[in-house]
């Protein structure tokens, strides 16, 4: 998978969360995914398809309970303590915004991409199977909380 592509998703993730939730996520070293088990308690996932090109893929963002509650509390300026419908709504919007910013960057090369509506998965023991392609995990940290961006693209 193209490294530039991963960088677009890292930049988009930092931009979206710093603008919406006033947090500055720090990206760790990306690694190849070896298990289909969900990495955290709540995930947003969507498919991305190139228009007029063969490139297609998907993006998942998996938040630990601590990380998403911190983000939501910052976004709304009020404390949240449980993963509920409002939190799932926020995960969907964050997934959409990150995908939108990354797709905008990708379109600067003259390629256009469309994204599906995000699906939200709650539960750490869920399995998420992507395309039969290598999937790259980018770990992020906000203070002591973690979340993960998982991207998988065909060239």
């Amino acid at each position: 998978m193209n490294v530039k592509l991963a960088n677009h998703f890292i930049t988009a993730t930092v931009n979206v969360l710093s603008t919406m939730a006033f947090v500055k996520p720090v990206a760790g070293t990306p690694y190849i995914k070896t298990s289909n088990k969900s990495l955290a308690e709540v995930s947003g996932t969507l498919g991305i398809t190139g228009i007029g090109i063969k490139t297609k893929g998907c993006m998942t963002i998996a938040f630990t309970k601590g990380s998403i509650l911190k983000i939501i509390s910052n976004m709304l300026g009020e404390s949240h303590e449980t993963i509920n419908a409002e939190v799932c709504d926020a995960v969907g919007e964050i997934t959409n915004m990150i995908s939108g910013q990354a797709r905008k960057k990708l379109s600067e090369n003259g390629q256009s991409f469309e994204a599906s509506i995000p699906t939200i998965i709650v539960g750490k023991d869920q399995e998420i199977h992507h395309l039969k392609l290598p999937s790259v995990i980018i770990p992020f940290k906000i203070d002591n909380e973690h979340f993960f961006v998982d991207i998988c693209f065909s060239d």
Partner: protein
Amino acid sequence: MAYNILIVDDSSIIRAVVIKTLELTGVPVNKIFQAENGKVGLEVLHNNWIDLAFVDINMPVMGGVAMIEEMFKDDLLHTVPVVVVSTEGSKTRINELIEKGIKGYLRKPFQPEALRDIIDQSLGVQKDEE
């Protein structure tokens, strides 16, 4: 003058974020109306005086494009300034909406300054009026 503002978005979180960001802009607001889709948005517009409408594109029941098209067919509603607030990345689609007559487009996520600028631009507020 304080404005009546309508926010049409199926995400309650995004509506809350827009309201919170509006507070940060210092724009004088009289009343904020909320709608979870275009159909409800049109009902609010028919029943209330709205100075500015923020409209998402992708919503269930009635999306933003269909809502805007209905507004432009209406003798009174076509005068209400509309700003599309969306993650929509397609320049073609955004240009189509601008050609239809929307006042502006704000990509999510956005800073308070961007929201303030697009409100001023949409309502024709000059900087020296503030």
